[in-house]
Protein backbone atom coordinates (compact mmCIF):
# COMPACT_ATOMS: atom_id res chain seq x y z
CA UNK A 1 0.00 0.00 0.00
CA UNK A 2 3.00 2.28 -0.44
CA UNK A 3 4.09 3.47 -3.88
CA UNK A 4 7.34 2.31 -5.45
CA UNK A 5 10.16 4.84 -5.56
CA UNK A 6 10.07 7.44 -8.31
CA UNK A 7 11.79 10.65 -9.30
CA UNK A 8 9.76 13.79 -8.79
CA UNK A 9 9.88 16.99 -10.78
CA UNK A 10 7.95 20.19 -10.19
CA UNK A 11 7.25 21.69 -13.60
CA UNK A 12 7.79 25.44 -13.68
CA UNK A 13 6.06 25.94 -17.02
CA UNK A 14 4.00 23.97 -19.52
CA UNK A 15 6.96 23.97 -21.94
CA UNK A 16 9.17 22.60 -19.19
CA UNK A 17 6.68 19.81 -18.43
CA UNK A 18 6.34 18.89 -22.11
CA UNK A 19 10.09 18.93 -22.72
CA UNK A 20 10.68 16.52 -19.84
CA UNK A 21 7.83 14.29 -21.03
CA UNK A 22 9.30 14.20 -24.54
CA UNK A 23 12.58 13.06 -23.06
CA UNK A 24 11.14 10.33 -20.79
CA UNK A 25 8.06 9.16 -22.72
CA UNK A 26 5.97 6.47 -21.06
CA UNK A 27 8.39 6.23 -18.12
CA UNK A 28 7.03 9.58 -16.96
CA UNK A 29 3.50 10.51 -15.92
CA UNK A 30 1.99 13.95 -15.41
CA UNK A 31 0.69 14.47 -11.89
CA UNK A 32 -2.36 16.77 -11.75
CA UNK A 33 -4.99 15.86 -9.14
CA UNK A 34 -3.56 12.37 -8.80
CA UNK A 35 -6.83 11.01 -7.46
CA UNK A 36 -6.71 7.99 -9.78
CA UNK A 37 -2.95 7.81 -10.38
CA UNK A 38 -1.90 7.81 -6.73
CA UNK A 39 -4.28 5.01 -5.68
CA UNK A 40 -2.93 2.99 -8.62
CA UNK A 41 0.61 3.76 -7.44
CA UNK A 42 -0.27 2.84 -3.84
CA UNK A 43 -1.45 -0.54 -5.15
CA UNK A 44 1.64 -0.68 -7.40
CA UNK A 45 -0.60 -1.10 -10.40
CA UNK A 46 1.30 1.91 -11.74
CA UNK A 47 5.03 2.39 -11.18
CA UNK A 48 6.12 5.44 -13.17
CA UNK A 49 9.84 6.20 -12.96
CA UNK A 50 9.18 9.93 -12.98
CA UNK A 51 6.29 12.15 -11.95
CA UNK A 52 6.01 15.59 -13.53
CA UNK A 53 3.93 17.64 -11.09
CA UNK A 54 1.91 20.32 -12.90
CA UNK A 55 0.01 21.59 -9.83
CA UNK A 56 2.08 24.77 -9.78
CA UNK A 57 0.97 25.77 -13.29
CA UNK A 58 -1.89 28.06 -12.26
CA UNK A 59 -2.27 29.25 -15.86
CA UNK A 60 -3.78 25.83 -16.68
CA UNK A 61 -6.57 26.30 -14.12
CA UNK A 62 -9.39 28.09 -15.94
CA UNK A 63 -12.91 28.01 -17.29
CA UNK A 64 -13.38 30.51 -20.09
CA UNK A 65 -15.56 31.47 -23.02
CA UNK A 66 -13.62 30.98 -26.23
CA UNK A 67 -15.58 33.79 -27.88
CA UNK A 68 -18.12 31.85 -29.94
CA UNK A 69 -20.10 30.53 -27.00
CA UNK A 70 -17.90 27.48 -26.61
CA UNK A 71 -16.32 26.88 -23.22
CA UNK A 72 -12.71 25.94 -22.65
CA UNK A 73 -11.48 24.16 -19.54
CA UNK A 74 -7.79 23.84 -18.67
CA UNK A 75 -5.66 20.91 -17.61
CA UNK A 76 -5.60 21.93 -13.94
CA UNK A 77 -9.29 22.80 -13.50
CA UNK A 78 -10.63 20.78 -10.58
CA UNK A 79 -13.98 19.01 -10.53
CA UNK A 80 -14.85 21.29 -7.61
CA UNK A 81 -14.63 24.29 -9.93
CA UNK A 82 -17.01 22.69 -12.42
CA UNK A 83 -19.54 22.18 -9.62
CA UNK A 84 -19.42 25.86 -8.67
CA UNK A 85 -18.54 27.91 -11.75
CA UNK A 86 -21.57 30.07 -12.70
CA UNK A 87 -20.73 30.07 -16.42
CA UNK A 88 -20.55 26.26 -16.49
CA UNK A 89 -23.84 26.09 -14.60
CA UNK A 90 -25.53 28.30 -17.18
CA UNK A 91 -23.86 27.10 -20.40
CA UNK A 92 -22.96 23.48 -19.71
CA UNK A 93 -25.27 22.22 -16.96
CA UNK A 94 -24.52 18.59 -17.92
CA UNK A 95 -20.87 18.97 -16.91
CA UNK A 96 -21.87 20.53 -13.61
CA UNK A 97 -24.46 17.85 -12.89
CA UNK A 98 -22.04 15.02 -13.64
CA UNK A 99 -19.25 16.62 -11.59
CA UNK A 100 -21.41 16.21 -8.49
CA UNK A 101 -21.37 12.45 -9.05
CA UNK A 102 -17.59 12.13 -9.35
CA UNK A 103 -16.41 10.30 -6.22
CA UNK A 104 -16.62 12.40 -3.03
CA UNK A 105 -16.16 16.12 -2.26
CA UNK A 106 -12.66 15.48 -0.88
CA UNK A 107 -11.68 13.86 -4.20
CA UNK A 108 -13.37 16.56 -6.31
CA UNK A 109 -11.43 19.23 -4.41
CA UNK A 110 -8.23 17.81 -5.88
CA UNK A 111 -9.12 15.80 -8.98
CA UNK A 112 -9.14 17.52 -12.37
CA UNK A 113 -11.42 17.13 -15.38
CA UNK A 114 -8.54 16.57 -17.81
CA UNK A 115 -6.90 14.01 -15.52
CA UNK A 116 -10.24 12.24 -15.26
CA UNK A 117 -10.46 12.10 -19.06
CA UNK A 118 -6.85 11.06 -19.63
CA UNK A 119 -7.30 8.24 -17.11
CA UNK A 120 -10.08 6.93 -19.41
CA UNK A 121 -11.93 4.79 -16.91
CA UNK A 122 -15.10 3.77 -18.75
CA UNK A 123 -17.02 3.71 -15.45
CA UNK A 124 -16.26 7.38 -14.90
CA UNK A 125 -18.87 10.06 -15.53
CA UNK A 126 -17.14 12.88 -17.41
CA UNK A 127 -15.86 10.79 -20.36
CA UNK A 128 -19.47 9.90 -21.22
CA UNK A 129 -20.52 13.52 -20.74
CA UNK A 130 -17.83 14.83 -23.10
CA UNK A 131 -18.86 12.25 -25.66
CA UNK A 132 -22.49 13.39 -25.35
CA UNK A 133 -21.48 17.02 -25.84
CA UNK A 134 -19.26 16.32 -28.88
CA UNK A 135 -16.35 17.98 -27.09
CA UNK A 136 -12.90 18.45 -28.58
CA UNK A 137 -9.72 17.79 -26.65
CA UNK A 138 -6.42 19.59 -27.27
CA UNK A 139 -3.28 17.50 -26.98
CA UNK A 140 0.04 19.32 -26.79
CA UNK A 141 3.61 18.09 -26.97
CA UNK A 142 7.01 19.73 -27.21
CA UNK A 143 6.72 19.49 -31.00
CA UNK A 144 3.18 20.74 -31.57
CA UNK A 145 -0.50 20.43 -30.80
CA UNK A 146 -3.62 18.84 -32.25
CA UNK A 147 -7.32 18.62 -31.53
CA UNK A 148 -8.96 15.24 -30.96
CA UNK A 149 -12.72 14.67 -31.13
CA UNK A 150 -14.16 13.07 -27.98
CA UNK A 151 -15.40 10.10 -30.02
CA UNK A 152 -11.80 9.42 -31.15
CA UNK A 153 -10.14 10.11 -27.80
CA UNK A 154 -11.20 7.00 -25.88
CA UNK A 155 -9.52 4.00 -27.48
CA UNK A 156 -9.99 1.15 -25.01
CA UNK A 157 -9.93 0.40 -21.29
CA UNK A 158 -7.76 3.10 -19.62
CA UNK A 159 -6.29 3.92 -23.04
CA UNK A 160 -6.61 7.18 -24.98
CA UNK A 161 -5.41 8.53 -28.31
CA UNK A 162 -2.73 10.58 -26.53
CA UNK A 163 0.83 9.88 -27.70
CA UNK A 164 3.48 9.28 -25.08
CA UNK A 165 4.86 12.81 -25.37
CA UNK A 166 1.46 14.55 -25.25
CA UNK A 167 -0.50 16.21 -22.48
CA UNK A 168 -4.25 16.79 -22.56
CA UNK A 169 -4.02 20.54 -22.00
CA UNK A 170 -7.55 21.73 -22.69
CA UNK A 171 -11.10 20.66 -23.40
CA UNK A 172 -13.51 22.61 -25.58
CA UNK A 173 -17.25 22.24 -25.12
CA UNK A 174 -19.27 23.58 -28.06
CA UNK A 175 -22.22 25.83 -27.22
CA UNK A 176 -25.49 23.98 -26.77
CA UNK A 177 -28.03 24.68 -29.52
CA UNK A 178 -31.10 26.77 -28.57
CA UNK A 179 -33.88 24.78 -26.86
CA UNK A 180 -31.43 22.12 -25.69
CA UNK A 181 -31.87 20.35 -22.38
CA UNK A 182 -29.46 17.96 -20.70
CA UNK A 183 -29.51 15.47 -17.89
CA UNK A 184 -27.08 13.11 -16.21
CA UNK A 185 -28.41 10.27 -14.06
CA UNK A 186 -26.58 7.39 -12.48
CA UNK A 187 -27.38 4.66 -10.02
CA UNK A 188 -24.75 3.61 -7.49
CA UNK A 189 -25.03 1.48 -4.37
CA UNK A 190 -23.72 4.40 -2.33
CA UNK A 191 -23.24 8.04 -3.34
CA UNK A 192 -19.69 8.49 -4.61
CA UNK A 193 -19.20 4.88 -5.66
CA UNK A 194 -18.71 4.00 -9.28
CA UNK A 195 -22.15 3.86 -10.83
CA UNK A 196 -23.65 0.53 -11.84
CA UNK A 197 -24.96 2.46 -14.83
CA UNK A 198 -24.98 6.13 -15.82
CA UNK A 199 -26.56 7.96 -18.72
CA UNK A 200 -26.09 11.41 -20.22
CA UNK A 201 -28.92 12.77 -22.34
CA UNK A 202 -28.82 15.84 -24.60
CA UNK A 203 -32.14 16.74 -26.24
CA UNK A 204 -32.71 19.61 -28.69
CA UNK A 205 -36.24 20.66 -29.60
CA UNK A 206 -37.39 22.36 -32.77
CA UNK A 207 -39.56 25.47 -32.62
CA UNK A 208 -42.64 23.29 -32.96
CA UNK A 209 -41.70 21.21 -29.90
CA UNK A 210 -40.66 18.11 -31.81
CA UNK A 211 -37.30 16.55 -31.12
CA UNK A 212 -34.72 17.92 -33.57
CA UNK A 213 -31.64 16.21 -32.17
CA UNK A 214 -30.79 13.74 -29.44
CA UNK A 215 -27.65 12.27 -27.96
CA UNK A 216 -27.45 9.42 -25.43
CA UNK A 217 -24.20 8.19 -23.87
CA UNK A 218 -23.47 5.74 -21.09
CA UNK A 219 -20.78 5.11 -18.49
CA UNK A 220 -19.86 1.67 -17.18
CA UNK A 221 -21.42 0.28 -20.35
CA UNK A 222 -18.37 -1.09 -22.17
CA UNK A 223 -14.61 -0.67 -22.56
CA UNK A 224 -15.02 2.99 -23.44
CA UNK A 225 -17.87 5.47 -22.94
CA UNK A 226 -20.67 4.29 -25.21
CA UNK A 227 -22.99 6.33 -27.43
CA UNK A 228 -26.34 4.67 -28.17
CA UNK A 229 -26.97 6.27 -31.55
CA UNK A 230 -29.87 4.06 -32.63
CA UNK A 231 -31.67 4.79 -29.38
CA UNK A 232 -31.06 8.52 -29.85
CA UNK A 233 -32.30 8.45 -33.46
CA UNK A 234 -35.52 6.83 -32.29
CA UNK A 235 -36.28 10.02 -30.37
CA UNK A 236 -35.75 12.40 -33.29
CA UNK A 237 -38.46 13.66 -35.66
CA UNK A 238 -41.57 13.78 -33.52
CA UNK A 239 -42.83 14.67 -30.10
CA UNK A 240 -41.31 12.52 -27.38
CA UNK A 241 -43.90 10.61 -25.41
CA UNK A 242 -43.96 7.46 -23.29
CA UNK A 243 -43.84 5.22 -26.38
CA UNK A 244 -40.67 6.89 -27.72
CA UNK A 245 -39.07 6.69 -24.27
CA UNK A 246 -39.81 2.97 -24.12
CA UNK A 247 -38.43 2.34 -27.61
CA UNK A 248 -35.26 4.35 -26.92
CA UNK A 249 -34.74 2.51 -23.63
CA UNK A 250 -35.16 -0.88 -25.31
CA UNK A 251 -32.69 0.06 -28.06
CA UNK A 252 -30.17 1.39 -25.55
CA UNK A 253 -30.44 -1.84 -23.57
CA UNK A 254 -29.21 -3.73 -26.65
CA UNK A 255 -26.76 -1.17 -27.97
CA UNK A 256 -24.46 -0.95 -24.93
CA UNK A 257 -21.83 -3.56 -24.01
CA UNK A 258 -21.69 -3.81 -20.20
CA UNK A 259 -19.66 -6.64 -18.71
CA UNK A 260 -21.29 -6.97 -15.31
CA UNK A 261 -19.37 -6.68 -12.05
CA UNK A 262 -19.61 -7.49 -8.36
CA UNK A 263 -22.35 -4.93 -7.83
CA UNK A 264 -24.52 -5.48 -10.88
CA UNK A 265 -24.87 -8.31 -13.37
CA UNK A 266 -24.76 -7.56 -17.07
CA UNK A 267 -28.51 -8.15 -17.31
CA UNK A 268 -29.18 -5.72 -14.47
CA UNK A 269 -26.89 -3.12 -16.06
CA UNK A 270 -28.86 -3.41 -19.30
CA UNK A 271 -32.12 -3.11 -17.37
CA UNK A 272 -30.81 0.00 -15.61
CA UNK A 273 -29.76 1.54 -18.92
CA UNK A 274 -33.30 1.15 -20.27
CA UNK A 275 -34.93 2.63 -17.16
CA UNK A 276 -32.42 5.46 -16.69
CA UNK A 277 -32.64 6.40 -20.38
CA UNK A 278 -36.35 7.13 -19.96
CA UNK A 279 -35.79 9.17 -16.83
CA UNK A 280 -32.86 11.13 -18.25
CA UNK A 281 -34.64 11.97 -21.51
CA UNK A 282 -37.72 13.11 -19.58
CA UNK A 283 -35.67 15.47 -17.48
CA UNK A 284 -33.63 16.73 -20.43
CA UNK A 285 -36.91 17.34 -22.27
CA UNK A 286 -38.26 19.40 -19.38
CA UNK A 287 -35.03 21.41 -19.28
CA UNK A 288 -35.18 21.99 -23.05
CA UNK A 289 -38.63 23.46 -22.62
CA UNK A 290 -37.52 25.90 -19.93
CA UNK A 291 -35.72 29.14 -20.68
CA UNK A 292 -32.95 28.68 -18.17
CA UNK A 293 -30.84 26.31 -20.21
CA UNK A 294 -28.67 27.01 -23.20
CA UNK A 295 -28.65 30.82 -22.86
Amino acid at each position, binding site marked *: *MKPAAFKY*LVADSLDHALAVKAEHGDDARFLAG*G*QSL*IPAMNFRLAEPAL*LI*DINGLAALDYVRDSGDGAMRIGALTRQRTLERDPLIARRQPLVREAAGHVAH*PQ*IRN*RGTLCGNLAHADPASEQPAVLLALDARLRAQSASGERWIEARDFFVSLFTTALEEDEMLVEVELPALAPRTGTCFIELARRPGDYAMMGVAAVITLGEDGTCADARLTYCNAGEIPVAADRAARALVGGRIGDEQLRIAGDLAREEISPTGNAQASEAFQRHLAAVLTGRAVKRALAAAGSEEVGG
Partner: protein
Amino acid sequence: MIEGLFTVTTSVNGTPYTRVVEPRLLLSDFLRHELGLTGTHVGCEHGVCGACTILFDGLPMRSCLMFAPQAHGHEIVTVEGLAADGDRLHPLQEAFRDAHGLQCGFCTPGILMTMKAFLDENPSPNEAEIRQALSGNLCRCTGYQHIVEAVTLAATRIAGRGPKS
Protein backbone atom coordinates in the same frame (compact mmCIF):
# COMPACT_ATOMS: atom_id res chain seq x y z
CA MET B 1 16.31 19.47 -11.47
CA ILE B 2 15.06 15.95 -10.91
CA GLU B 3 15.89 15.17 -7.31
CA GLY B 4 16.11 11.94 -5.38
CA LEU B 5 15.21 13.70 -2.16
CA PHE B 6 13.00 16.73 -1.73
CA THR B 7 13.05 19.43 0.91
CA VAL B 8 9.51 20.21 2.04
CA THR B 9 8.59 23.34 3.94
CA THR B 10 4.96 23.43 4.93
CA SER B 11 2.72 24.96 7.55
CA VAL B 12 0.74 22.50 9.65
CA ASN B 13 -1.73 23.97 12.15
CA GLY B 14 0.09 27.28 11.84
CA THR B 15 3.52 25.86 12.66
CA PRO B 16 6.17 25.81 9.92
CA TYR B 17 8.03 22.54 9.40
CA THR B 18 10.94 21.63 7.11
CA ARG B 19 11.87 18.03 6.37
CA VAL B 20 13.89 16.22 3.71
CA VAL B 21 11.82 13.36 2.31
CA GLU B 22 11.61 10.79 -0.44
CA PRO B 23 9.06 11.91 -3.04
CA ARG B 24 7.08 8.70 -2.59
CA LEU B 25 6.30 9.51 1.05
CA LEU B 26 2.53 9.94 1.30
CA LEU B 27 1.38 13.14 2.95
CA SER B 28 -0.52 11.06 5.51
CA ASP B 29 2.70 9.28 6.51
CA PHE B 30 4.58 12.58 6.49
CA LEU B 31 2.15 13.99 9.04
CA ARG B 32 2.24 10.90 11.23
CA HIS B 33 5.84 9.72 11.03
CA GLU B 34 7.86 12.83 10.20
CA LEU B 35 5.89 15.34 12.26
CA GLY B 36 4.45 12.99 14.90
CA LEU B 37 0.93 14.28 14.31
CA THR B 38 -0.82 10.95 14.71
CA GLY B 39 -4.31 12.40 14.89
CA THR B 40 -4.62 11.93 11.13
CA HIS B 41 -5.54 8.27 10.70
CA VAL B 42 -4.69 5.96 7.81
CA GLY B 43 -7.29 3.46 6.72
CA CYS B 44 -7.50 2.29 3.13
CA GLU B 45 -4.72 4.29 1.43
CA HIS B 46 -6.66 4.49 -1.80
CA GLY B 47 -9.06 7.33 -1.16
CA VAL B 48 -12.17 5.42 -0.15
CA CYS B 49 -12.42 5.52 3.65
CA GLY B 50 -11.78 9.19 4.39
CA ALA B 51 -9.95 8.62 7.70
CA CYS B 52 -6.92 10.62 6.49
CA THR B 53 -8.90 13.71 5.44
CA ILE B 54 -7.12 16.98 6.22
CA LEU B 55 -7.64 20.59 5.19
CA PHE B 56 -5.23 21.51 2.39
CA ASP B 57 -5.28 25.26 1.80
CA GLY B 58 -8.65 25.20 3.55
CA LEU B 59 -10.28 22.40 1.56
CA PRO B 60 -10.78 18.81 2.74
CA MET B 61 -8.62 16.38 0.79
CA ARG B 62 -7.27 12.86 1.19
CA SER B 63 -3.76 13.03 2.62
CA CYS B 64 -3.15 9.45 1.42
CA LEU B 65 -3.64 10.64 -2.17
CA MET B 66 -0.94 13.29 -2.09
CA PHE B 67 2.81 13.04 -1.83
CA ALA B 68 4.64 14.91 0.90
CA PRO B 69 6.54 17.19 -1.54
CA GLN B 70 3.19 18.42 -2.84
CA ALA B 71 2.62 20.13 0.52
CA HIS B 72 5.62 22.40 -0.10
CA GLY B 73 4.49 25.98 0.33
CA HIS B 74 0.94 25.02 1.30
CA GLU B 75 -1.07 25.25 4.52
CA ILE B 76 -2.42 22.18 6.22
CA VAL B 77 -4.80 21.83 9.14
CA THR B 78 -5.13 18.47 10.87
CA VAL B 79 -7.44 17.41 13.66
CA GLU B 80 -4.82 18.58 16.15
CA GLY B 81 -5.40 22.10 14.85
CA LEU B 82 -9.17 22.03 15.09
CA ALA B 83 -9.40 23.32 18.67
CA ALA B 84 -8.03 26.83 18.33
CA ASP B 85 -7.83 27.17 22.07
CA GLY B 86 -5.88 24.30 23.58
CA ASP B 87 -8.15 24.04 26.61
CA ARG B 88 -11.44 23.98 24.78
CA LEU B 89 -12.55 21.64 22.01
CA HIS B 90 -14.00 22.91 18.74
CA PRO B 91 -17.84 22.95 18.81
CA LEU B 92 -17.80 20.02 16.39
CA GLN B 93 -15.65 17.98 18.75
CA GLU B 94 -17.88 18.89 21.72
CA ALA B 95 -20.98 17.96 19.74
CA PHE B 96 -19.48 14.59 18.74
CA ARG B 97 -18.78 13.89 22.40
CA ASP B 98 -22.19 15.04 23.59
CA ALA B 99 -24.20 13.28 20.87
CA HIS B 100 -22.14 10.06 20.96
CA GLY B 101 -20.93 10.67 17.41
CA LEU B 102 -18.12 8.16 17.80
CA GLN B 103 -17.42 4.75 19.25
CA CYS B 104 -13.94 3.46 18.40
CA GLY B 105 -12.92 6.86 17.05
CA PHE B 106 -10.82 5.67 14.13
CA CYS B 107 -12.84 7.51 11.49
CA THR B 108 -13.49 10.56 13.67
CA PRO B 109 -10.55 12.81 12.70
CA GLY B 110 -11.38 12.52 9.00
CA ILE B 111 -15.06 13.15 9.66
CA LEU B 112 -14.33 16.19 11.82
CA MET B 113 -12.11 17.76 9.15
CA THR B 114 -14.67 17.03 6.44
CA MET B 115 -17.50 18.47 8.51
CA LYS B 116 -15.46 21.54 9.50
CA ALA B 117 -15.19 22.57 5.84
CA PHE B 118 -18.79 21.50 5.16
CA LEU B 119 -20.24 23.69 7.96
CA ASP B 120 -18.02 26.61 6.95
CA GLU B 121 -19.63 26.48 3.49
CA ASN B 122 -23.11 25.43 4.57
CA PRO B 123 -23.75 26.60 8.17
CA SER B 124 -27.37 25.37 8.42
CA PRO B 125 -27.55 22.06 6.56
CA ASN B 126 -30.53 19.73 6.56
CA GLU B 127 -30.18 16.03 7.28
CA ALA B 128 -29.98 15.00 3.62
CA GLU B 129 -27.16 17.46 3.00
CA ILE B 130 -25.27 16.20 6.04
CA ARG B 131 -25.61 12.59 4.89
CA GLN B 132 -24.44 13.52 1.40
CA ALA B 133 -21.44 15.38 2.83
CA LEU B 134 -20.58 12.35 4.98
CA SER B 135 -20.65 9.96 2.05
CA GLY B 136 -16.88 10.06 1.59
CA ASN B 137 -16.15 8.97 5.16
CA LEU B 138 -16.72 5.42 6.31
CA CYS B 139 -17.66 4.60 9.90
CA ARG B 140 -18.13 0.96 10.87
CA CYS B 141 -19.35 1.53 14.46
CA THR B 142 -22.12 4.05 14.63
CA GLY B 143 -24.42 3.42 11.71
CA TYR B 144 -23.98 7.19 11.14
CA GLN B 145 -27.16 8.15 13.03
CA HIS B 146 -25.29 9.71 15.94
CA ILE B 147 -22.81 11.36 13.59
CA VAL B 148 -25.65 13.09 11.76
CA GLU B 149 -27.08 14.18 15.12
CA ALA B 150 -23.67 15.45 16.25
CA VAL B 151 -23.20 17.53 13.10
CA THR B 152 -26.71 18.94 13.47
CA LEU B 153 -25.97 19.83 17.09
CA ALA B 154 -22.67 21.45 16.14
CA ALA B 155 -24.31 23.53 13.42
CA THR B 156 -26.94 24.72 15.89
CA ARG B 157 -24.36 25.63 18.50
CA ILE B 158 -22.02 27.37 16.06
CA ALA B 159 -24.92 29.49 14.88
CA GLY B 160 -25.62 30.34 18.51
CA ARG B 161 -29.17 29.13 18.23
CA GLY B 162 -29.04 26.21 20.62
CA PRO B 163 -28.02 25.18 24.12
CA LYS B 164 -24.35 25.47 24.94
CA SER B 165 -22.72 22.40 26.35
